[in-house]
């Protein structure tokens, strides 16, 4: 299929382009920019005047709930939601049921994703068997099966020796390690940021130190092992400083932040709003500002959705009895654009943190739209004002604290390898 996208504002941060121009797609790839040869007859023309044309979004962390929790969502339902959110690639962490510690699970997820056909699903394999933090997972086999890295999902490895050896083993195969810092003792039973709001509401707190102690420990180990490490969804200003320092010392460490941590704080818990129950917890305004500054400076290279769709019942209980997590695929772009509105970073940088930034972490060839690149494209109307309502959500999970929020900027088309996988209703 040949597609011509005409007259849009073409933003391709990896190639340093921000200009009104035409984009021509043929054979799943970007064929020409600005003008096509006379013989190019597109099957489809997209009038992109007034729209932004950018690489498809790459989301570093999205739970698809399959296999294991199909009552919450499926690979098909959530990749469809991803397409509606302009996301063409998403990364599934290994804490499915069964855990991604066997190649069969990798194959299952890949097969289902391919059958659905809405987005590329990349998989982070388990760092330890069953994510139990005791034995190494078969990382070489997982890599062969196509895993883009290894990690222990939201279960940090407690045993320092096991962690060290799993980092060394991952390094042997050139695998990027995805680390989610959280001290199990300091966060035990906690459901909110340890601070004034948790104190007022009488909720058990998760201190900032639950994150920083593990970041410090992991960095100390990483200093002696030549392995690429990525810290997933940081929540505190202090952790950002620690990562910045490590990067300044030349360690190959990267980090991301969830879109909701860039916009919400502990105050958004309101009167026990379970939709704002998320782990790591929403922290203070100081932390939110630190995360925003880290994103703007590039210390944090990517914004992820940390998508966790839930059925209604999971959030209908007293706060601490509810399941943590936010359904975030369809607000990822809008929350990124909101940072531009808030003056945190320019549009090209916001798009970079959603495309080329995560692509670099994953060492992908996508995330840009140079001639010859795979045509994963997102088109959005930057002026379209809309509000998030349950009926506008494609994901099976309607659990969002942003329900009722007004956003500016909405996806109009999503192309996956030159194929239209989403088109907004006219």
């Amino acid at each position: 299929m040949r597609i011509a996208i005409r007259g849009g504002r073409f933003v391709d941060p990896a190639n340093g382009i921000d200009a009104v121009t035409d984009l021509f797609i043929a054979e799943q790839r970007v064929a020409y920019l600005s003008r096509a040869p006379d013989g190019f007859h597109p099957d489809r023309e997209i009038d992109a005047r007034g729209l932004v044309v950018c690489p498809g979004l790459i989301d570093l962390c999205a739970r698809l709930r399959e296999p294991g929790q199909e009552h919450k969502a499926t690979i098909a339902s959530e990749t469809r939601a991803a397409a509606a959110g302009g996301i063409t690639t998403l990364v599934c962490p290994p804490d499915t049921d069964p855990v991604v510690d066997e190649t069969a699970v990798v194959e299952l997820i890949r097969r289902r994703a391919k059958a659905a056909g809405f987005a590329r699903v990349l998989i982070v394999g388990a760092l330890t068997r069953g994510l139990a933090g005791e034995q190494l997972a078969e990382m070489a086999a997982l890599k062969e099966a196509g895993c883009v890295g290894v990690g222990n999902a939201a279960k940090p490895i407690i045993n320092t020796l096991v962690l060290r050896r799993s980092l060394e083993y991952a390094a042997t195969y050139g695998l990027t390690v995805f680390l989610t810092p959280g001290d199990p003792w300091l966060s035990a039973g906690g459901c909110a940021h340890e601070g004034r709001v948790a104190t007022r509401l009488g909720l058990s707190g998760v201190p900032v130190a639950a994150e920083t102690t593990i970041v410090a420990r992991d960095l100390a180990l990483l200093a002696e092992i030549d392995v690429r490490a990525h810290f997933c969804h940081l929540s505190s200003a202090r952790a950002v400083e620690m990562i910045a320092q490590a990067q300044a010392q030349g360690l190959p460490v990267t980090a991301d932040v969830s879109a909701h941590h860039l916009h919400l704080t502990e105050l958004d818990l309101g009167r026990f709003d379970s939709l704002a129950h998320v782990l790591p917890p929403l922290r203070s305004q100081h932390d939110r500002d630190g995360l925003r500054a880290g994103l703007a400076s590039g210390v944090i290279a990517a914004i992820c959705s940390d998508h966790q769709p839930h059925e209604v019942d999971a959030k209908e209980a007293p706060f601490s009895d509810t399941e943590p997590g936010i359904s975030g695929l369809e607000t990822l772009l809008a929350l990124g654009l909101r940072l531009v509105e808030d003056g945190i970073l320019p549009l090209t940088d916001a798009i970079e943190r959603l495309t080329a930034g995560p692509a670099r972490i994953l060492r992908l060839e996508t995330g840009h739209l140079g001639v010859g690149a795979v045509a994963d494209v997102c088109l959005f109307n930057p002026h379209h004002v809309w509000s998030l309502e349950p009926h506008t959500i494609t994901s099976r999970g309607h659990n969002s604290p942003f329900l009722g929020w007004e956003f500016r900027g909405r996806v109009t088309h999503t192309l996956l390898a030159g194929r239209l996988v989403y088109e907004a209703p006219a």
Partner: protein
Amino acid sequence: MSLTNIQLDNHGRLRHFLTIEGLQRQHLVEILDTAESLSGVAERRVKKLPTLRGKTVVNMFFESSTRTRTTFELAAKRLSADVLNLSISTSSTVKGETLLDTLRNIEAMQCDMFVVRHAQSGTAEFIARHVKPHIAVLNAGDGRHAHPTQAMLDVFTIRRHKLDFANLRVAIVGDILHSRVARSQIHALNILGAGEVRVVAPKTLLPACVETLGVQVFHDLQPGLRDADVIIMLRLQRERMQGALLPSAQEYYQQYGLTEERLALANPDAIIMHPGPINRGMEIDSAVADGPRSVILEQVTNGIAVRMAIMSITLGTHTHPFREDT
């Protein structure tokens, strides 16, 4: 989610009683004055008023409690309500029924008021958001969050002994971290304009940013008690010795136990309070608990009148939605 206080109706009157936080002084004074007028009922030969005749009050206790449940039951009965006591911790929830299922089932029994105690913070508010509009919800203690009727009976007791809140120094001593009672007391005292509210505890038993609740923080009991007019001792659970919160009961008693000797630091007419049940020799010496300045048993008695007041005020707004309340 709306930040509006769901315990108030459109006219700013109490329709539920979930937390002291966010209430106005006038709400608290109305409860105290009503309780004062109701406290005579217990001294009568026939200890009943017809206020809630034909109404059904359900005690929904997801956490065991004898005293609180009993005083709620007595309060309801003295107002002529029918009372249903449900201990839910051991029945439905273990069978996999969700809290909302349980709620719907009890709601189907045509009741008028739920008195809720639950181990999780926010449960009473959760229930209030989900019940039918004619039902009033009273919080009888939710997790570490609030125990507003206890705080009201405490300030009622204080008001009976001390006429003026403005010059009052109140010291709350003990496990503030886990205490819903302390949180509600602090809000109530601050709303009533207490001169100074102090919390006295080791750092392990204080929540983060406790000063933002509007208290002076003391770690040492002696200065914490100095010139206090009211001393509120909190119950220390034995299990706090586990989890590295405290080294031993002995050391806690040595550091924070209220003895006659330490009591001498407070004002000579200081009163001693405790939400109960007391741990003799753990947080308070028997001589102090049973001494002339202790008002601990008075608190229990006052609990009935205060709960009667809260029940009649909240159900009053439900039964007469279009009439000015008296």
